[in-house]
């Protein structure tokens, strides 16, 4: 990339070096030196690991399949709305739908589960029934599954929507005119939406697989829990990495499949001229509203109810005041760190997207290397990333400049979630119509100013989406946060987790309300930006 446009790509590279390159080198150093550092090498039971791997895969598989089943129809609805958003018709519906469908993803999964879990306390009829029939664990597992599904179905919806929006609606109409049987039409829909469904299912699978917090709360021993226990008993980093190898391989494989699915260019651009409205659409709308109610609405009501019952005579104002005194700074710090992560993630996405659109092979290869690095980091256990960051940054001037500042948290969170930015960058690069890429080149987008001028709407939109997703993932991050947060730098996330363990729902409720507010704002902002950019880009593409 000539001119000054290299600044964006270089920024992405610098972030990659800070979050992946340098810690990876330190990690190698740690692994080589580790055998002499720690006593108590632990006994690792490989049969137990295999058994727990099956448990984790089973749960993640159930979540993925359930999310695909639930998220498909809302995804089709969103996709149609998305396709029509380039016209003035129904853009209000698209905005509302898209915002609402982003909110559940933005809430930490453990918050949704916790809310549902609190719905059947020990004095409830359901608990009494479960206890009487010795089904408490079964009901708890069902609650966990419901909580994870409530959180994951919108992921599938978004993925399906991305593909549906690029499928001509005439295809369905032609099948109708041909008097095709419902089964034939259903199979055709599956054929059209298959990639989106698979993509969403895979992402839901990976997200559930890497989550340990909800499983701990539900008393389920998983592969992630076992890795943590191995570390707790003094295993060396080398032992932990070896034990984590199956999970790492699985995550990398999943990420590669996601990569391939994203890499397929859309064959056709959707036409928004003709769509069929009617009862089926109203039905899907109602179904989507119901799902949203279960995912966001009811959990909030349940938490509010518990908060009131746990208030002990204190007013809401008093509770808020207590919360602010105790956790206010932590809440603010957590938000700021998450926002910075979101912004830097959008820089990564933008930088990689430009690199992938470059005509020179070596630039594209450099982007590939970075993306692979992000994906491998996502597959490494969080505590390993924490240790690597300690070794990498707790030295010389880096200690005062990075390790003892919140910058280390930002770097750690990006190491965990930067792969999302890389994937979105890949999508941005490949989904942009070739004509636009050529026009951008002709517009002289080699200087930074020209590049930004030519790509501003798309950059803003993609950056907005990356910002929203990574920021909210960062808000809920636990393993790295717990290990590298600077002394004296309060954060709300570990406190929420502790309060869940100690059954203090008032803290969880207030923090959740704050999370929800941020999620709503971030979702709405991202959708508005995306929507306006999409209209601008599409009008150019169709002309």
């Amino acid at each position, binding site marked *: 990339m000539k001119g000054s446009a290299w600044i964006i790509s270089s920024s992405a590279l610098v972030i990659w070096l800070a979050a992946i390159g340098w810690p990876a080198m330190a990690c190698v150093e740690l692994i080589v030196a580790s055998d002499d550092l720690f006593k108590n090498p632990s006994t690792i039971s490989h049969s137990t690991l295999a058994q727990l791997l099956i448990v984790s895969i089973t749960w993640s598989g159930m979540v993925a399949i359930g999310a695909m089943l639930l998220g498909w129809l809302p995804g089709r609805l969103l996709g149609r709305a998305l396709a029509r958003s380039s016209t003035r018709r129904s853009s209000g519906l698209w905005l509302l739908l898209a915002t609402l469908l982003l909110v559940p993803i933005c809430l930490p999964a453990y918050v949704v589960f916790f809310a549902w879990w609190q719905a059947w306390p020990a004095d409830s009829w359901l608990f009494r029934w479960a*206890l009487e029939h010795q089904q408490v664990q079964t009901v708890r597992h069902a609650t966990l599954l419901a909580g994870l599904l409530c959180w994951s179905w919108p992921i599938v919806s978004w993925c399906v929507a991305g593909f549906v929006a690029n499928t001509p609606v005439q295809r369905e109409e032609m099948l109708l005119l041909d008097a095709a049987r419902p089964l034939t039409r259903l199979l055709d829909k599956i054929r059209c939406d298959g990639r989106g469904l698979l993509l969403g299912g895979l992402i839901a699978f990976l997200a559930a697989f890497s989550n340990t917090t909800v499983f701990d709360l539900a008393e389920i021993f998983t592969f992630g829990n076992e890795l943590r226990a191995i570390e707790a008993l003094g295993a060396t980093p080398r032992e932990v990495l070896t034990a984590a190898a199956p999970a790492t391989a699985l995550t990398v494989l999943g990420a590669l499949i996601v990569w391939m699915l994203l890499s397929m260019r859309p064959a056709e651009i959707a036409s928004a001229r003709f769509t069929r409205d009617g009862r089926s659409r109203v039905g899907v709308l109602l179904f989507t509203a119901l799902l949203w109610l279960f995912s966001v609405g009811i959990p909030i009501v349940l938490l509010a109810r518990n908060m009131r019952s746990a208030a002990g005579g204190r007013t809401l104002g008093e509770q808020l005041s207590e919360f602010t005194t105790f956790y206010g700074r932590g809440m603010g710090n957590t938000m700021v760190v998450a926002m910075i992560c979101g912004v830097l993630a959008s820089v990564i996405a933008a930088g990689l997207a430009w690199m992938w659109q470059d005509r020179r092979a070596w630039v594209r290869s450099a982007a590939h290397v970075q993306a692979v690095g992000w994906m491998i980091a996502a597959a490494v256990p969080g505590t390993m990333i924490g240790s690597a960051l300690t070794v990498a940054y707790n030295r010389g001037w880096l*200690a005062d400049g990075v390790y003892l500042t919140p910058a280390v948290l930002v770097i750690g969170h990006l190491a965990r979630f930067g792969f999302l930015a890389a994937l979105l960058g890949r999508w941005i690069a490949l989904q942009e119509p070739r004509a636009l890429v050529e026009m951008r080149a002709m517009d002289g987008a080699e200087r930074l100013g020209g590049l930004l001028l030519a790509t501003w709407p798309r950059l803003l939109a993609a950056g907005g989406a990356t910002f929203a997703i990574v920021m909210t993932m960062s808000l809920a991050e636990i393993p790295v946060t717990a290990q590298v947060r600077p002394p004296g730098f309060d954060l709300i996330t570990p406190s929420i987790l502790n309060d869940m363990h100690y059954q203090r729902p008032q803290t969880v409720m207030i923090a959740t309300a704050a999370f929800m507010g941020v999620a709503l704002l971030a979702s709405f902002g991202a959708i508005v930006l995306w929507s306006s950019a999409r209209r601008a880009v599409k009008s150019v593409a169709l002309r």
Partner: protein
Amino acid sequence: MNATPAFRFGCFLSLFILSFLLFGCGRSEQQYVVLYASADEYVAREVITAFQEETGIRVRFTGDTEAKKTTGLVERLRAEYASGKPQADVFWSSEIFMTLDLADEGVLEAHHSDTTKDWPATFRDPNGLWYGFAARGRVIVFAPGRVPDEDLPETWMDLSRSTYKGRVVMADPRFGTTGGHFGAMKAYWDREYQPGIYSAFLLGLAENETRLLASGNAGVVRAVANGEADFGMTDTDDVWAAQAQGMKVDLIYARHSRHDDPGTGTLLIPNTVARVKGGPNPDAAAKLIDFLLSERVERMLAESVSGNVPIRRGLAEKYPHRAVPNPLAIDFRRAAAVRVEAVDEAMRVLREGQRGDE
């Protein structure tokens, strides 16, 4: 304003650089001390505030998550030690066994002062690497009214009797005090009785289908309070906290021997405080350690929701409801030395038992 995209992009980046700088500049020149503490955040913050008010020294506090208990901070201390630049000055652990591991690994440094001069030998390292204070007991929790009196166990070994089949829960021994307790059982029984008793106890637990809970000692108390189990192995502070929340639970100070001889009763696990070797603020660290070992802090912890047992005899008498009858006479170092072995064996036996049941 008609700003160019480049200008906007520049503003964007500048804002973030500024944010970073603001974070970095948030550190005042005021004297400070860095504390890593695994005690409950609610309790720890109260103590920290008192120290700051008394000395004017600012405490930079880092806590642990309940899920990882003390292990998260221990891993961090080890990693920082390995990187050659310790960042903590003082380590306040809610238990003792991992502190002993850190002492053996050379992560801690000796501390001596007037406060520690006459500290009880049981609760101190001979070289001053750590000091114990404000203990809690390992107890059996049960729900009064739901369990007949004749069913109440008197010793830990009782839990391996068939009477308790399917009625007992415990936390994952790889985290928290449960692992330390198992180490203490193995060390004590192997030495005071005969090798093999610990293994027999584990086999009994496995045959009784004792359930492991991933949610820790608080989860154990919750399971008993909810009626999912009749008995649970836990700590006194979790029972006091549950009672404060209105849960109907009580505790048994179970013995480690069939006979009620002195020194065979409940395992007391003290909080421990230690100075981190190479910590950046040694003077302030010394002040904080002495403060944590003061009578004032023991009183605060005894009156807190944790209800810790003061190790000062005179003070303990003022809190008779927290008193632990007949504490177990145990060498903590021996218990810590066999902890990992004991936990590994426990996990193997209990898991094999579970597989066998399936």
